Each structure stands twice: as structure tokens, then as C-alpha cells.
């Protein structure tokens, strides 16, 4: 979490936060998870605060999750998205930022297709900024909710063996998770053909394998990334069919496992591609649990930024 010269706090990247921040955020997320179990799932903590959801890239799940988190903290939420705002008419990010400043918002949650846009935004607004995913850079709240889920399900994070499978190159989820897991002392193994791995990713502190079988033997958590058809057009791999053959969590692969890892996915799943439908059904509870955790973690983040303990 960075604090800028005006005292506004931002969550832009897992790269910016340390282990203690992550752990204390996961702790308080547990309290926020409890709020969502109450008959009245709402606390007045951020009453009178206004949070702008600036989603400049299509996203339903993350946007709704942030919206719900804000509302459960009694904040007012306004939403801009690519299709409903003047941004689609070519308004620059800077002009949008100035509009938000004029509206007096207390925080902006931004999703943007360009890496670094949230960081750039902090220079133009006079409020907190939360990165809800920027290009191929980071998606810090996704990593936090994933760690939350791992910790709730498996009881600990340190020493946990996590295999991340799929299109690492285009994945901000992978970049944030790799760094978050490293910071809390988990081990990360990337499973992908070299053509889906970015340059020098090893230097981020991960091991690499091309063999899903090897990863399955090793891991406590199997984290599957969504694979997209357009990567075939980019010649990253020959076909979805071949991808499934090599890297898909198929029924036979799953059944053969003596020790079943926790299967996670940032959603939405491509049934029949990275995961066979029947396996998806079996592990669905974890993945929907990630969604629930998302609200709690985002409540904790918003509360930390806007009400959080300074110093």
C-alpha cells in the first residue's frame, strides 16, 4: 500500500506491499466475511464516503464484487464503464480523473486495459486509488482473495506449494499471485508451454515446468488460469484441443490423483478447455468460495484505504 504526498492511500500492486500488510489484511478480511453472514449484511463504516468504480475494460465479476463490498460498508458507489461513459467517445483518462476530482469522490476503483493506468491515475486525482486489474500488470485484490481462500481452506500459507497453470504471459492474476505467494513464504511452480510464459519470469521467484503431471504430483493448490482462443491466433499454442490434452485438468488426470490438491480458478471457467466440466462440478465450491472471499477482501481493502489505521 502506498501513501502519496497528500496522505491518500492506494493499493496499486502486490509489488508495493509487504508480508505484514498481506497477513493483517487477510486477518481483517475474516471479520468482514462475518459481516456478510449477518441478517443485515451492512455496516456503517464508510457511511458518507463515495467510491467511483471506473471500469474501462469489460468486467462483470470484479466490478460487482467491488460494488457489493462498498455497499456493505455503506459507501455510495458510482459506476463508470466503457460503454456508458464519455470515455468511449475518446475522453482521456486524465480528463476522466479531473471529473472524478470535481465530483469529490473518496476513492476510485479502476480496471484498465493498459498496465500502469492506476498508478498514472494517482497523479491526477485527489483520493485513494485501488487497482482492479491493469493490463497484464497486476490484479492485487484477486491475489489477496486467492490467498484468503487458500488460508481458510488449508490453514496456512507458509510452505504451501502452488502450481499456476496456463497463460502466464497475459495474466495479471498470475503476476500478483506469484508475488503475493512469495511474500508469504509459499512456493510457486508455473505450468505452461514456454510460448505462454513471459521473458525472464524465473527472476520473479518461481520454478517452471512443462508437465502438468509433474505439477499435480507436487502441488497443494492447483491454480488454473482462463485460456483464450485468441492465443491460438497468436500462435502461442496450436489449438484449444491440444491445450486441453497437455494442460487441461481432465477427468482421467483428476481421478488418477491419490492426493487431490485444492483447485482454484479466477473465473469465469472455460469448461472443457482448462478444466473438464465434471471436474469443475466437483471443485466448484472452492471457486464460488473465491467469489465470496472477494467481497470480504475488497471490504477490508476499502476500509483500510479509507478508514484505515495510519502509521
Amino acid at each position, binding site marked *: 500500500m502506498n501513501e502519496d504526498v497528500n496522505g491518500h492511500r492506494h493499493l496499486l500492486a502486490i509489488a508495493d506491499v509487504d508480508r505484514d500488510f498481506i497477513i*493483517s489484511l487477510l486477518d481483517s478480511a475474516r*471479520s468482514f466475511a462475518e459481516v456478510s453472514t449477518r*441478517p443485515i449484511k451492512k*455496516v*456503517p*463504516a*464508510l457511511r458518507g464516503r463515495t467510491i467511483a468504480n471506473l471500469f474501462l475494460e469489460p468486467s462483470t465479476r470484479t466490478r460487482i464484487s467491488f460494488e457489493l463490498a462498498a455497499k456493505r460498508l455503506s459507501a455510495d458507489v458510482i459506476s463508470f464503464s466503457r460503454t456508458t461513459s464519455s470515455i468511449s467517445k475518446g475522453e482521456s483518462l486524465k480528463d476522466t480523473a479531473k471529473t472524478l476530482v470535481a465530483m469529490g469522490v473518496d476513492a476510485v476503483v479502476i480496471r484498465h486495459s493498459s498496465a500502469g493506468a492506476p498508478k498514472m491515475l494517482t497523479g491526477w486525482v485527489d483520493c485513494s486509488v485501488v487497482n482492479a486489474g491493469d493490463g497484464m500488470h497486476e490484479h492485487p485484490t484477486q491475489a489477496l482473495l486467492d490467498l484468503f481462500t487458500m488460508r481458510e481452506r488449508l490453514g496456512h500459507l507458509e510452505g504451501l506449494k502452488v502450481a499456476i497453470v496456463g497463460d502466464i504471459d497475459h495474466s495479471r492474476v498470475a503476476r500478483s499471485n506469484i508475488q503475493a505467494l512469495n511474500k508469504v513464504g509459499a512456493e510457486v511452480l508455473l505450468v505452461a508451454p514456454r510460448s505462454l510464459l513471459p521473458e525472464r519470469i524465473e527472476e520473479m521467484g518461481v520454478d517452471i515446468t512443462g508437465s502438468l503431471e509433474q505439477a499435480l504430483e507436487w502441488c497443494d493448490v492447483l491454480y488454473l488460469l482462463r485460456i483464450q482462443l485468441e492465443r491460438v491466433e497468436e500462435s502461442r499454442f496450436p489449438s484449444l484441443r491440444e491445450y486441453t490434452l497437455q494442460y487441461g485438468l481432465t477427468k482421467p488426470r483428476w481421478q488418477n490423483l491419490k492426493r487431490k490438491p485444492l483447485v482454484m480458478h479466477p473465473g469465469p471457467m472455460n469448461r472443457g478447455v482448462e478444466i473438464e466440466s465434471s471436474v469443475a462440478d466437483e471443485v466448484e465450491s472452492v471457486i464460488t468460495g473465491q467469489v465470496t472471499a472477494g467481497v470480504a477482501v475488497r471490504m*477490508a481493502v476499502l476500509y483500510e484505504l479509507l*478508514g484505515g*489505521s495510519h502509521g
Partner: protein
Amino acid sequence: MAFEARARVLDTEDLSRIIRRIAHEILERSKGSDDLALVGIRTRGVFLARRLGKMIEEIEGKPVAVGALDISLYRDDVATRGASSIGVTEIDLDTNDKKVVVVDDVLYTGRTIRAAMDAIMDFGRPQVIQLAVLVDRGHREVPIRADYVGKNVPTSGNEKVKVSLEEIDGVDMVEIGEER
């Protein structure tokens, strides 16, 4: 800043006498422990609520529901003072139509109790809400009064009341003094 004690207002024995007395008062006013629920406010109110619960169980011979409440998210001053880390609220009891007794260590401005009542209302609709405090030091800023008071301790605004409990502080006592 360090707390500098000027006088001890309550010691271990005073505390146990107060717990016993308030337990009896609650039972008398509530006509027994049926429908009774004790809700302690984090942090020290929770331990006081547990002690009261245990005492009531000893007297009545049956357990009474005790919950813990973290009111951070209901405070009216999050924006100005910043929030502390959030504790877990454990009210796994049904407060509907219950006689809820909110338990806290020190009653001062009354704002904490106001926030606690908002929180309790979100969990259900109690028949009645009452308030038990170990020390009432005055200086109310909202119209709230305690139903059960361990000791009234008149203070000035710059004084501080420090409550120590065996469970977390290793010793039972209440001191008055100043922050330096």
C-alpha cells in the same frame, strides 16, 4: 505516551464483588436468566461479559448466552481517527426477543455504546437492551446511561481511566491517572 497512574480506584477483590453484585442485579431486574444474552464490547467488555456469564450460571445453575462485539465498523469517527484493526464479532446467538445486556469496561462519552446498539440492532430485534459497565467516569456526549454500574468515578477531561484485567493484563485493577 505512557500512562501515569495517580490512584487505584478498584482492586482484585473490588472487581469480584462488583461482578457478583451486578450479576444479582441483572437477575433481579430480568427475573431470572431466561432470554438473557450478554454481549461484551471488544476488548475488555468481552472478558467482563464472560465473568458475568459465569457468575450468573453459578447462581442460576444453567448457562447464559455470551457474545462478543467489535464496534469498529459502527464508529462515527473512523474518518477522523482512523480505524484500528478489526476484531471478530461473535454473536452466534439469536438476539430476537432477547433481553440483551451490553457489557463494557468504562462508560465515558457514550459513543461506543451508541455504536454498539446500532450493531446489535443489525443482528435482530431484542426485547430490551440494557447496559452494564465497570466504571462510569462521566462526560457523556450522547443521552445514554448505564443500567448497572460497578463504580462511579468522577474524573476531569484530561484524566484517563485504565482498566486491567487478569485475562489480558495479568492483573485485575482500575487506576486513574494521566497520559504523558
